[in-house]
């Protein structure tokens, strides 16, 4: 099993390395969001209040609007990590469909390589990209904080080893979850158009019912209620609570991480059942 997994994973990374345009484009997407959307949308509700609020009022406003982040940009960067973890996995299933169309998948299925190796190799390569991109977003946003004239990520809490571990775990779980989901779509479907229709049907509602991009304080109550169960929100909560402190959150970051783990476990379980059926030796 390990040799099969190793060989197929090597293939996935070789293909990725042979496509520098795709790597460049995947980096460009978050870069543009951080550089244009985040900078342009960097609202400051504190500045709208007259007379100027007291420090305790400022803290309360930041908790209300940005869940403790010192400004929208910092709030947005944590959300952007969740956003990237979802969007960077979109193509993972499409690659399976193209491999089916080009006969490569048929070749692999003609070998005794177990379905776990076929699925696992694509999952490893497909998750590596969003995970790497998520850290690219965090690093870039921290860097912007040192560039004159640009807003950057302003970490206001001491992160520590456990906090850092929780951030990594949240990013990994969220990436794995969506990579599993879209990979399953790719294995079950045979037509690229159907795949992208299904992915968009899921992708947009998931992102738009999360608090990844909207300032929390401006969201209607019903959306806040829906959002708190959204897996993207759960991951973003872990990041924001770790980076900006837990004043705005009723539970510690570990609880949100547990919620995310529950989501991932359920979805991966469903995916395994469907994929095992689809990839069984004789169809």
């Amino acid at each position, binding site marked *: 099993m390990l*040799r*099969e997994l*190793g*060989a*197929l994973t*090597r*293939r996935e990374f*070789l*293909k990725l390395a*042979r*496509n520098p345009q795709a790597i460049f484009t995947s980096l460009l997407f978050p870069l543009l969001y951080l550089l244009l959307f985040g900078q342009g949308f960097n609202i400051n509700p504190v500045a709208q209040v007259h007379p100027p609020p007291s420090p305790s009022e400022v803290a309360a406003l930041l908790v209300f609007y940005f869940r403790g982040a010192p400004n929208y940009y910092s709030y947005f960067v944590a959300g952007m990590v969740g956003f990237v973890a979802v969007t960077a996995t979109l193509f993972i299933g499409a690659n399976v469909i193209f491999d089916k169309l*080009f*006969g*490569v998948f*048929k*070749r*692999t*299925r*003609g*070998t*005794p*390589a177990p379905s776990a*190796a076929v699925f696992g190799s694509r999952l490893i390569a497909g998750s590596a990209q969003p995970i790497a991109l998520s850290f690219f977003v965090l690093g870039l946003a921290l860097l912007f904080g040192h560039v004159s004239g640009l807003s950057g990520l302003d970490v206001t809490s001491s992160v520590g080893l456990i906090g850092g571990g929780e951030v990594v775990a949240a990013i990994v779980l969220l990436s794995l979850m969506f990579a599993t989901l879209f990979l399953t779509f790719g*294995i*079950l*479907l*045979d*037509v690229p158009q*159907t795949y992208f229709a299904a992915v968009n049907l899921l992708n947009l509602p998931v992102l738009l019912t999360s608090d990844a991009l909207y300032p929390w304080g401006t969201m209607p109550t019903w959306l806040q209620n829906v959002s708190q169960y959204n897996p993207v929100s759960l991951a973003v909560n872990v990041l924001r609570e770790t980076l900006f402190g837990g004043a705005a959150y009723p539970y510690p970051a570990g609880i949100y991480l547990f919620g995310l783990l529950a989501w991932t476990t359920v979805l991966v379980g469903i995916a395994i059942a*469907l994929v095992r*059926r*689809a990839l069984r*030796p*004789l*169809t």
Partner: protein
Amino acid sequence: MQTVQAIHAENLVKVYNGKVRAVDGVSFDVRPGEVFGFLGPNGAGKTTTVSMLSAGLRPTEGRAVIDGLEVNVDPEAVKRRIGVIFQEATADGDLTGRENIEVAAGCYGISAAEGRRRATALMEQMQITEAADRLAKTYSGGMRRRLELAVGLVHRPKILFLDEPTLGLDPQGRAGFWGFIQKLRSEEGLTVFVTTHYLDEADTMCNRIAIIDHGKIVATGSPGELKDKLGGDIVTLKTAPGAPDMTGVLRPLAGVYSVQSQDGTYRVKCRSGEPFVPLAVEACTRAGAGVTGVTVKRPSLDEVFLEFTGREFREEEGPTATDRAVLMQSVQSGLRGRR
């Protein structure tokens, strides 16, 4: 002790969508070391049969045994004993030839070091060493087929399934490909099961042939046996311009089955060509028609094919009932969200 057949198919049936019988009770045996040709018109059930034999498709009824292993019981063990060269190109164009073989080796659980060693040896054997580190998408058609063959042989299978292996290759490429197959067969005792659209290939390369039509096997035997079943030779006589019609003269001669004529050329089907020719030439000359040319030929597989299926081998056809059934099943499966 009874010899284990390389391939044993017993009453194989495949029904798509519960109504289209793509394969309808196919039974045959392939002996170890034999090259067995599987011929049939488009949609006859060739590829479906190959898929069932190579552990890719579950038969609706019947059983297939490969090298003593039941395909339905242990498909993964069967996959380790067979190599499959698909009709379409399946090598990954974004990987080099060497990487394609190494990845395939890994899929059979072969270690990376051994995979590298076998890739080098196979590329040398297939004469594509110079292109080993080029992306497969830059290969010519012939090179790509040789790469497919190398990929299919990396785990040293005992039985090789070739589904239209030379489709789209030029005559030189076809000859080269078959040269490799014959070499492998003689050196390694490989059993080869091949479907092909080229009857000349089947005639010269196959020890035995089965012809399938509408999902049923209509004839089996060596190329010579199948031709013999047609019952004789074909003699073509050409008479001098302006000569009278010789149909009535030729038909009563001994051993003649049928005579067809067109513009002074007579196609005579008879029991045996050699004794017939002097009789025919003498009869024509006596009747006032000088014979300007004579050819004798044994029936080709084209004629065998025509005889058993009722159509020309290369007749162009639209989508068959099976094609449509497979397409519909695929679409419906897609809609149901499962393959």
